[in-house]
């Protein structure tokens, strides 16, 4: 069935390059989340959208990170001037409603390697 998809699955960037990571949530899901997962660790919250509104971006590590969801469906996480410490798996998750509900459906992630 159609789950959360992310592209690309793997991205190698040279330090200083900009990257854009895409998330296609489950159709009709209101809430969308981005997480960063370093190797061997649990995911860490980055930002949250309810429809097109970015309600929480407290987890974004620096102003080089920017996320958008202009039409309330597909979302893009952009990282400018990538640094080696940005190397991680970036996970996207969606959930059905905008109310506090915790059954999130995760995508497979994009593994970003900055060289």
């Amino acid at each position, binding site marked *: 069935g159609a789950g*959360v998809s992310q592209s690309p699955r793997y991205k190698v960037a040279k330090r200083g390059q900009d990257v854009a990571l895409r998330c296609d949530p489950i159709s009709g899901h209101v*809430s969308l*989340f981005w997480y960063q997962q370093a190797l*061997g*660790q*649990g*995911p*860490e*919250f980055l930002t*949250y959208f309810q429809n097109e509104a970015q*309600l*929480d971006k407290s*987890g974004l590590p620096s102003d080089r990170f920017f996320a958008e969801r202009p039409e309330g469906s597909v979302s893009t996480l952009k990282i400018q001037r990538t640094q080696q410490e940005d190397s991680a798996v970036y*996970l996207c*998750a969606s*959930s059905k409603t*905008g*109310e*506090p*509900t*915790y*059954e*999130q*459906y*995760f*995508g*497979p*992630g994009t593994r970003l390697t900055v060289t």
Partner: protein
Amino acid sequence: GESVGLHLPTLSVQEGDNSIINCAYSNSASDYFIWYKQESGKGPQFIIDIRSNMDKRQGQRVTVLLNKTVKHLSLQIAATQPGDSAVYFCAENPPDTNAGKSTFGDGTTLTVKP
């Protein structure tokens, strides 16, 4: 006093045995807890959840226990199967956080030997 299981980064069990995975959470105000399973190359998958007004919840082959006194969660998997091999994370949510702003614990890698 009551003994509390230690968090172990890895756990190896024989197929058919029961597994117990432990997690210590950090925020005494957290009121909602989730266990996730993450297989290699995939995102976390919801297994079971529990609210702080409960101390036990059962699912299919899984049971979550919550001890608020010592801020401890455990996940019990009955009759462990090779398909259960994965990394398991607990996650906690304080009250009034938006959906998804969970804090994940350290994972435990479960290996099931046939």
